């Protein structure tokens, strides 16, 4: 059993490809069922947002698993072959797959590091997977852990503040161009999370006129409604740009939407009234050459981040701190995964019962000092026999189920019934208090997963 991830994101694939692979919510269930019907795929979860399409799965074999998932992704769109996808995909397994999920959940892999939308999207994907019984004990544990890691990152670092601060920095810059924002008009191009957040900040700072344009006209209408603004047709927004004092651009387009000439023309139409352009897109949607246009002030996400760093006057890199947390947490999950291996569990079980037996024997034999050697042997034999019979079925079942889809659940159950804990940690648990913290936390996590366990596994298709 191996955890793998196969997918593509804004870092590896242009929007044209991402759009084709995106799975609409209505077809999510069907897709998950199809994913789990592939041979060797035991558990699966599908994350599909405008910036990434990723499949996390538990597979029997890494190489064949990669192949199956790639086929699955290619099947999503008729015009795409599996080979065409290859240059845009990334494949990770084991720790790297877990680490990838943690980084994605913590928004470290996002276009705008620290934005919060992705965590909600992961929760939704997980809900859908649970509903369709596509995940089992392993992914349940790992995804839950990813969510808790993301929360830890958000509370213990200032990474989330970054996204808010970027909006704040944009408003603050605007105030150095326009003294009174209440008379100004904001044009929102695209519906990126950051741009919406920034638009809300502008409105909170007095901006009353909002114009919205997105590729999808319906979406623009909804957004315009939310901001009490006006929707503008996407094809016409360049002509409309002159009416905007502040232009916020955040689309998924892989090319420049706004050129130097467009801005030059707008500034001219505005009779040289200054324009403030904010490009929160990655890759950029406004040609950086716009910087050369007089009375147009272009700032991109890096400029805003620089401003934020200066505002804070703090040298510590929050993203780096978050990355370290991810590494720590991956270590904890790795230990737990190791505990799910059957052999170490059997060894631990054996050791555990032997310890109990020995302790009880010592206690009893200490009181029966006048026993003969034979009698002592008989008592010891009886103790061994009771213990062996008690654990016999457990051992046999564990060995038998090792390769079934429920293997992990059995191991988990055995570990909990016999209080086996983590093999690597619990040996030192009683003697070394320093490591007990790690053990406790993983125990707590196991309990958390236990709540989900009963509804999983049993109905996984296993061909």
């Amino acid at each position, binding site marked *: 059993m191996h955890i793998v991830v196969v997918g593509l994101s804004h870092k590896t694939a242009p929007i044209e490809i991402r759009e084709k692979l995106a799975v609409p919510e209505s077809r999510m269930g069907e897709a998950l069922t199809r994913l789990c019907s592939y041979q060797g795929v035991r558990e699966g979860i599908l994350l599909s947002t405008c910036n990434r399409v990723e499949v996390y799965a538990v597979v029997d074999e890494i190489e064949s698993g990669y192949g199956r998932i790639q086929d699955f992704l290619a099947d999503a769109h008729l015009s795409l072959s599996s080979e065409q996808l290859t240059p845009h995909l990334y494949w990770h397994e084991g720790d790297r797959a877990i680490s990838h999920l943690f980084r994605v959940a913590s928004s470290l892999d996002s276009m705008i590091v620290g934005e919060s939308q992705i965590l909600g999207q992961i929760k939704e994907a997980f809900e859908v997977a649970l509903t369709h019984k596509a995940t089992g004990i392993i992914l349940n544990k790992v995804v839950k852990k990813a969510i808790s890691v993301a929360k830890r990152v958000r509370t213990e670092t200032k990474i989330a503040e970054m996204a808010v601060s970027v909006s704040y920095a944009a408003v603050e810059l605007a*105030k*150095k*161009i326009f*003294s009174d924002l209440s008379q100004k008009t904001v044009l929102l191009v695209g519906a990126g999370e950051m741009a919406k957040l920034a638009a809300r900040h502008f409105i909170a700072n007095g901006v009353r006129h909002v114009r919205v344009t997105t590729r999808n006209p319906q979406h623009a209408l909804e957004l315009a409604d939310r901001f009490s603004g006006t929707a503008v047709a996407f094809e016409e927004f360049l002509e409309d740009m002159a009416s905007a004092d502040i232009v916020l651009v955040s689309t998924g387009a892989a090319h420049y939407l706004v050129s130097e000439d467009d801005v030059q023309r707008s500034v001219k139409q505005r009779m040289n009234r200054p324009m403030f352009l904010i490009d929160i897109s990655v890759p950029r949607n406004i040609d950086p050459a716009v910087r050369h246009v007089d009375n147009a002030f272009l700032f991109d996400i890096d400029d805003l981040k620089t401003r934020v760093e200066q505002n804070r006057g703090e040298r510590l890199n929050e993203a780096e701190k978050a990355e370290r947390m991810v590494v720590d947490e991956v270590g904890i999950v790795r230990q737990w995964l190791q505990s799910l291996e059957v052999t170490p569990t059997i060894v631990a079980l054996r050791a555990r019962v032997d310890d109990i037996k020995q302790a009880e024997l010592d206690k009893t034999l200490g009181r029966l000092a006048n026993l003969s050697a034979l009698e002592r042997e008989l008592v010891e034999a009886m103790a061994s026999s009771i213990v062996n019979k008690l654990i016999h079925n457990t051992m046999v079942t564990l060995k038998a189920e090792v390769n079934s889809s429920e293997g992990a659940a059995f191991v988990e159950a055995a570990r909990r019934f016999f209080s086996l804990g983590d093999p690597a940690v619990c040996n030192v648990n009683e003697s070394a208090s320093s490591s007990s913290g790690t053990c406790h936390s993983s125990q707590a996590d196991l309990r958390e997963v236990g709540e989900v366990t009963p509804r999983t596994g049993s109905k996984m298709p296993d061909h």
Partner: protein
Amino acid sequence: MAAMFFVVTMTLYFAATVSFLAYLLWPSEVLSNVSLGMTATGFASHTIALGAGMIGVTDVSTPGFHQALSFFSWVLILVFLAVEFRHRLHVLGSFIVPLALVSLVSAAALPETAPTLTPVFRTLWVHVTLSMLGTVGFAIAFVAGLMYLIQDGLLKSKRFNVLYSKLPALDYLDHLNQQSIVTGFPLLTLGIITGALSAEFSRGSYLNWNPEQTWALVTWVFYFVVLMGRLTVGWRAKRAAYLTIIGFAGVILTLIGVVLKSHGPVS
């Protein structure tokens, strides 16, 4: 007494200039209050000096460049204090107070008694006052333009330093620029008209195309074009800033020319 207060004023303005310039580079806001206090005290002292000087003025006294420049400096600070009082724009002091100081030092360098233009009428006082008020407008526009270009440059190059944080919004500066010219231009126009009337009385001709009159007219036409350009074809923002800086340089050159002609080797 006037002379004493004049020296006190100069000393205070000098200290305020140093303090205001330091304020530009220093993140703290404390210096602004110190600078402001010195400027206000200097202004009070200057008012007394000017008032004391006025006592001796009779109909036949003629206003010289000493008085004109001193008056210019006084109005400049008055306008600054008014704007500061309304908008709390400390940083304006860092630009205006040095200008007022330079004007005052120039005044000090010139003799208090003017070379007599014969015959002189009361209109000359009106001419000098109006011209100087107009010039104050252009001076403020110049300062606003200068601040605009600095802030524009800082924003474009994304250098968010102390100066950036202290300078006001670009459109505020552009508005200040416009208001100053809109106010200064009619005053200069009246100044030129009264000047022409004075010339008519003193020399018998409204206009005899001497260099200072020519320059004054060129300046007038220049600001007229700047003002019209702003109102009709959008000469605002950066272009307006450049134009008002050039315009004010022209004004200064005119003044220097006139002063040299009256007092210096030129005449």
